[in-house]
């Protein structure tokens, strides 16, 4: 293991004190003079034609300053899929049709929230209700009513993956099994309901402070929706209260808020209610997965075939990526010679589904890792041994898809087994107690250019000042995952300065260079590489100036502890501030500022690197009540070189928490397209009392593509939790539940079916 001075240290995050003291300003905390408050009128119908909208009464209400409907917009659709424009399918305000309960119909700006709310009640909309299509399988049938007129059979996106020959693989297998799995709709439920504040200047330029994970894509899409030039729209991310994918895109309310600000000439703020955050944002895709797998008697994996139907909801959102990754992830963990996948994402009259933490991963891993456990038991092979026998190894190619460089999966399996005394305990615990294992992997950001940007995915600028301070400008958005801290650590390490010498300006399209945003665990890896590239360039410029003064060749110079010296010869040296001063003087006082970038060019179509994880769950199941209690989760995680181990642990613990909710309690319940549980009382995320002990085992590998060997951290850990728990439940009571969440009702039903006479 390499020794670093800043990387690998458990440093408190740079923004934590501001958050701890209540000084951190989130979008809803911002105020501007003469600011108005905006509200959105949403569709009460899952599917209906808009016949007429009458806003006259609302406009006449004292205190109302503007009302907008689809007619006030440019009437152009927006969306992130600039690489496939047929997928750009959402209007800022519905033009002719509403497609889910919550679809945006009109928006109001008024002097306060109450008045805006009251005005919504005065807007009269005449609808012609249409047949709502809520089941994706029914929506795919020929002749089903269309949700988007131009989309046949309501299939938003289909994706096929094939390598080897599955028929031959199954024919050569000694053992083949098929299973069906069903995955529920999960809500993102960030603690911060989203908000934005829009303001135009005298020249017609817009600034919007908004709860977003992706300032640059929002800037581009917002400009297009408003008919402005991208350079005339500035998107600033204030502190963000959790994203997990929920705040990844431009949302209609941001366009409405901007329109209202434009129309009134005053700043306008909009804040989602908690109910809106649940029911008018995005969800994790519900999915039905059919999975067929073939093995040799000795446990060698021969072939896999999968079919997935994704409940897409009303709009495309980030669904196509989920459709792809839901097929890709079946290939990642184990050496697989033959594979075939077909995935269909289907429109329904429900809130749009999108990419949520563990994007397109939690669903296939639940299916694959639960089935792996069934296979192990059928073949009489220990579940860890079966996985080890087939486990992905470093530097392997997955045909047509990607290359896996570093891979610590086998070590994760071995270590998590040792730590939990697996071999002594599996199948040997007292009745009602069980232990189960599951694995997963995760990409380090995407390689595919869905946004069709001409710019590198990550850019960074670094300015060195002659007082020894260094400022990093990065478009990458810290959404609570700690990326700003990690980027400062990477910069300090490469530049040989102290962590406290570095500060960061981030996520503001007016002042920071382009970054494609925070999604798919890409920031540490991709933005980290951009920052490191900038730091290397800065050193090059400094060394060129300093070398003659130290009687050395620039290539022989190094910097550590804020001193530049020739390698292997600590003296003479030059302090960093002095070197910056010299560089400025050599360039007639020009500030010393450099840029760096990273783009995953030639890295396949998925990602440049992958993390791996193995989780062991220990559970107690009450056969009388069906209640499942998780006692402990042991997580062995290969995230390459952890840049900040304390942050990595935090990401792992948070992912495990989300996975626990997915496994046992979380589910969007809806009837006729309406979400019935859009509150924290009825939508149950685990509380501090529900959380088991979490034990984390670091498996350190050196990822050649990553900054200082780092790669994806934490996100991958959400996926194996549910299958590990399901497998532990089987170990405890001998029944399988193959649809999530595993509620007491489902456990009792499975027990009754297993023992019909008891």
């Amino acid at each position: 293991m390499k020794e670093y001075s800043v990387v690998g240290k458990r440093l408190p995050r740079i923004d934590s004190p501001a958050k701890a003291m209540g000084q951190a300003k989130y979008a809803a905390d911002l105020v501007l003079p003469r600011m108005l408050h905006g509200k959105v009128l949403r569709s009460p119908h899952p599917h209906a034609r808009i016949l007429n909208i009458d806003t006259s009464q609302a406009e006449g209400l004292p205190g109302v300053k503007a009302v907008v409907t689809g007619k006030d917009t440019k009437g152009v659709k927006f969306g992130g899929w600039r690489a496939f424009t047929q997928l750009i399918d959402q209007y800022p305000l519905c033009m002719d049709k509403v497609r889910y309960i919550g679809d945006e119909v009109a928006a109001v700006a008024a002097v306060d929230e109450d008045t805006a709310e009251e005005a919504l009640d005065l807007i009269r909309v005449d609808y012609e209700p249409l047949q709502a299509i809520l089941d994706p399988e029914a929506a795919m049938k020929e002749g089903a009513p269309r949700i988007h007129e131009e989309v046949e059979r309501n299939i938003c996106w289909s994706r096929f993956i094939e390598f080897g020959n599955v028929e031959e693989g199954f024919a050569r297998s000694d053992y083949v099994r098929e299973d069906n799995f069903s995955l529920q709709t999960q809500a993102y439920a960030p603690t911060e309901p989203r908000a934005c504040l829009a303001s135009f200047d005298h020249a017609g330029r817009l600034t919007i402070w908004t709860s977003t994970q992706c300032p640059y894509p929002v800037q581009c899409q917002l400009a297009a929706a408003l008919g402005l030039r991208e350079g005339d729209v500035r998107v600033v991310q204030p502190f963000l209260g959790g994203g997990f994918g929920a705040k990844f895109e431009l949302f209609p309310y941001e366009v409405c808020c901007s329109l209202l600000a434009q129309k009134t000439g005053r700043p306008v703020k909009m804040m989602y209610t908690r109910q809106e955050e649940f029911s008018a944002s995005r969800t994790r895709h519900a999915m039905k997965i059919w999975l067929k797998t073939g093995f040799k008697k000795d446990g060698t994996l021969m072939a896999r075939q999968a079919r997935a139907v994704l409940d897409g909801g009303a709009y495309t959102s980030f669904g196509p990526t989920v459709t792809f990754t839901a097929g890709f992830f079946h290939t990642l963990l184990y050496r697989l010679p033959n594979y075939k996948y077909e995935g269909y994402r289907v429109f329904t009259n429900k809130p749009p589904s999108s990419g949520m933490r563990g994007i397109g991963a939690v669903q296939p891993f639940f299916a694959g890792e639960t089935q792996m456990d069934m296979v192990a038991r059928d073949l009489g092979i220990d579940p860890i041994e079966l996985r080890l026998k087939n486990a992905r190894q470093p530097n392997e190619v997955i045909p047509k898809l990607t290359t896996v460089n570093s891979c610590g999966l086998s070590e994760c399996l071995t270590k998590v087994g040792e730590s939990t005394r697996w071999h002594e305990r599996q199948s040997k615990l007292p009745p009602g107690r069980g232990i189960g294992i599951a694995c997963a992997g995760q990409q380090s950001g995407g390689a595919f250019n869905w946004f069709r940007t001409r710019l590198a995915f990550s850019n960074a600028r670094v300015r060195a000042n002659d007082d020894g301070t260094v400022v990093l400008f990065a478009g990458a958005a810290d959404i609570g995952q700690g990326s700003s801290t990690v980027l400062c650590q990477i910069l300090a390490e490469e530049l040989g300065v102290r962590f406290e010498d570095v500060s960061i300006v981030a996520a503001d399209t007016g002042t920071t260079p382009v970054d494609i945003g925070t999604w798919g665990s890409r920031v540490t890896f991709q933005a980290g590489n951009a920052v490191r590239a900038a730091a290397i360039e800065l050193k090059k410029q400094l060394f060129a100036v300093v070398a003659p003064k130290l009687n050395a060749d620039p290539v022989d110079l190094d910097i550590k502890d804020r001193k530049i010296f020739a390698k292997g010869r600590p003296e003479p040296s030059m302090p960093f501030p002095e070197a910056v001063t010299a560089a400025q003087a050599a360039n007639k006082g020009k500030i010393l500022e450099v840029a760096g970038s990273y783009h995953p060019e030639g890295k396949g179509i998925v990602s440049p690197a992958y993390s791996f994880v193995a989780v062991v769950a220990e559970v107690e199941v009450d056969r009388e009540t069906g209640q499942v209690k998780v006692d402990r989760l042991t997580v062995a995680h290969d995230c390459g070189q952890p840049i900040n181990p304390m942050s990595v642990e935090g990401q792992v613990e948070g992912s495990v928490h989300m996975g626990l909710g997915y496994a046992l309690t979380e589910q969007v319940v809806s009837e006729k397209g309406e979400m019935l549980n859009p509150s924290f009382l009825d939508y149950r995320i685990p509380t501090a009392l529900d959380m088991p002990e979490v034990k984390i085992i670091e498996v350190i590998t050196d990822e050649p593509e990553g900054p200082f060997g780092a790669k994806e951290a934490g996100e991958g850990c959400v996926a194996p939790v549910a299958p590990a728990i399901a497998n532990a439940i089987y170990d405890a009571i001998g029944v399988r539940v193959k649809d999530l969440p595993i509620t007491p009702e489902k456990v009792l039903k499975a027990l009754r079916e297993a023992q019909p006479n008891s």
Partner: protein
Amino acid sequence: MQQRQRIIELNVNGETHTLAVEPQRTLLEVLRDNLGLTGAKRGCDQGYCNACTVLVDGKAVNSCLILAVRAQGKRITTIEGLSHNGRMHPLQEAFVNRGAIQCGFCTPGMVLTAKALLDANPDPSEMQIRRAISGNLCRCTGYVKVVEAIKEAARVLKTGGAA
């Protein structure tokens, strides 16, 4: 829908404010909109997430569930009142140093709930800590480091590190 405003006096973080507020305004709205104390967060407005927690006469209270007019004559402490001249309370320090803060949206409520707990019970068991914060929802941390931070703060406060 303008209601007649009432003049009230609110004691917040040791200062008395004379304010004209409509009687239906919640304490959360008045803290945020009239006094600019935005540390208390509006996470649900329904009393389920506890991001709006403040101390009222030392007790942790959802400020979205009480009317500002009912908070007259009581001692209100918000997160802004816990640090002094930029010096953090041991609970805040422990949250920072233990990595208990990620997105930070639940943090003010979590810290104040912990403050109420430790004031009433300086040496709580882990179960008592978990029970105390069980109404404070966090989507980032899994509560692991939050519980660790509260334990650490309890240790520091017992040995005289009180701010």
